[in-house]
């Protein structure tokens, strides 16, 4: 299966990383969990959900007065975004979040033996920074993947638009009742796409 896992095996430290991600974890180092959404989760497990929540709180720094990570339920939105993706992507993201959280992985790269969710905010920033600047390609890729997920969940929400000075799209031009033409002998409604000889 050509997943991130097999890609990983080709990379520097890949085999070691995978072994760590596969279960030789510092199992006694438990994650710091957060309350789960009442609607339930579609893709993420409770530990992965906590990791996304923790990452979102560091990557996102809402402007004063802007919606917070809690207001927009970013981890929940991320779960729902992931639910739209194919199964391979979902598996890969879950593996990636496991690597972020995994204490032994952290020890190998940064000397930490504490799961990501149990680190204080400054240390979490440092871990994200390690991933971002890493010489191991997989970690740079991983940083991009989790960053893209949480920023798109936040800045894709119209409630954040005032905080970035974006007025929103020109709604007056949107017509949810515009006709839909499918042919079948029906005449085509007039419009700019219909050819008219000049």
């Amino acid at each position, binding site marked *: *299966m*050509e*997943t*991130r896992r097999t890609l990983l095996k080709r990379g520097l430290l890949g085999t070691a990383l995978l072994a760590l991600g596969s279960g030789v974890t510092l199992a006694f180092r438990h994650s710091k969990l957060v309350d789960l959404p009442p609607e339930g989760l579609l893709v993420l497990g409770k530990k992965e959900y906590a990791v996304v929540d923790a990452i979102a709180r*560091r*990557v*996102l*720094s809402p*402007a004063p007065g*802007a919606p917070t990570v809690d207001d927009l339920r970013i981890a929940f939105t991320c779960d729902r*975004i992931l639910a*739209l*993706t*194919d*199964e*391979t*992507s979902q598996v890969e993201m879950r593996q990636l979040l496991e690597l972020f959280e995994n204490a032994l992985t952290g020890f190998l790269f940064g000397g930490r033996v504490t799961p990501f969710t149990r680190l204080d905010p400054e240390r979490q*920033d440092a871990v994200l920074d390690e991933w*971002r*600047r890493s010489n191991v*390609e*997989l970690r*740079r*890729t991983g*940083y*991009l*993947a989790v*960053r*893209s997920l949480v*920023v*798109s969940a*936040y*800045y*894709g*929400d*119209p409630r954040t*638009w005032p*905080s*970035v*000075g*974006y007025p929103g*799209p*020109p*709604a007056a*031009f*949107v*017509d*949810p009742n*515009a*006709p*839909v*033409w*499918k*042919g*079948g*002998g029906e005449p085509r409604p007039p*419009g*700019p*796409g219909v*050819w008219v000889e000049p």
Partner: protein
Amino acid sequence: MKDGRIVTGDELLESDTTLECDVCIIGSGSGGAWLAHELCAAGKDVVMLEEGGYHTRREFDLTEAHVYPKLYQELGNRATDDLSITMLQGRSVGGSTTVNWCSSFRTPERILKIWREQHGCEALTPQTLDPHWAAAEKRLHIAEWPEALINRNNRILWEGLGKLGYDRGLIRRNVNGCANLGYCGLGCPIDAKQSMGVTVLPDAVEKGLRLFANVSVRRLETQGKKVTRVVADVLDPQTDRKSGRSFTVKAKATAVCGGAVNSPALLLRSGLDAEGRVGARTWLHPVVVMLSEFAEPVNAFSGAPQSVYSHQFIERGEGKMGFFLEVPPVHPMLASVVSTGMGAQLQSFLGRLPYVNAMIAIVVDGLLPHETGGTVRLRDSGYGRHSISYDFVPQFWEAARTACREMARLQFAAGAKRVHSLHQTPLTLESEADLGKLDQAEWEKIKVRVVSAHLMGGCAMGKDASKSVVDPQLRFHGLDNLFVVDGSVFPTSLGVNPQLTIFGLARWASQHVAAAV
């Protein structure tokens, strides 16, 4: 008028639908649409299968979070496996023409010359293609965008180019009654964009085309030297997942028009790999971006997204990769994903969104002799996902660094207060005196953002069957009735935005497909 029709997945309720026709076209983008139109006009019975949905302007609410999942490949997340290049590619009836930024250029003669002289595509002369381009330009109202209407984001490029004495031009756009909104990438809400979905495809339906949306072709079945069956899954339009219903087409000829990445992937799924050449030599026009901040609002989310270009650096001498300059629109979600940094730094930058100008340098790949470019391979799982890799050559990084330096100079010349590169460790230039910082930056994959919106190659055309996938008439080497008609047949990249090249090529190629029926 014949009774062609557009049928969506929710209307296909039989456990299997089997149709017969003259030509089965797979994909409804710039190649498939023009091919279908010409074949229907010639009286052929054509069935078109499109994996994406039939989305029309009533659904185009111009909201990024709604549009990317609906109108883009892989929900807008198509990328190389290592995320070193993120790709924007359309996925709906109309393909990328539903969401592209309308820029229309004829194929440069220097590129056609390479295709003729190095790849044996001797018919592809400007004289041959002129009438096809002219027809497309007329039908799609392709015309230069008036300078008076260019938005501030484009004007910054225009003014910078003027001040530095660089080549500059106004882009021709395929629009009719454009309201200059700036949302071409999110689907035109007034059908002013002359995308395939509102022009050539409905024209073809009026001529008898049967177009089936939400039908994802899984494989081509062959017997001897012929494709005998096209086998597809019907997708549920609401979930985009398999519905459990199948769809089969038996056609006298088949044309694969899924674009780069999807066309080679379908051939690979069908066991047609041309000894490893299918999916190889995929060209991406890799793009590097520079952002700048101005004291006055730029509002780069508003106004025609692309109206100014420069080919000042398109040919940079032997052994170097050229690039061309344009600007992209800046909307909040895409800006947040493409930008770099996190926390307060990220918010501080995005908080100035209306004052941000973005400039892009589009690097011309595939012209150096040793380049291999991108490679598309299958994954064992993942319904719509493929494995994509890209081999960056040192010359690319030289071009990227030079391009970012030139873009910063243009931005400062136009009055920028500050310029940012898209390195993962964000780099800020306060004035031209800081240009040297770019030379010290890390020019490596994933350490600087590279994106692509022009996917080409992977099924290269050529005379020599040992070096190409399709012949100069776009017929798959070794099969009598299979054609590939889209941007995947380009042996190199173009050096211009690709849609008009594909329009012309498909219109020209229709004669060869028709002759195979």
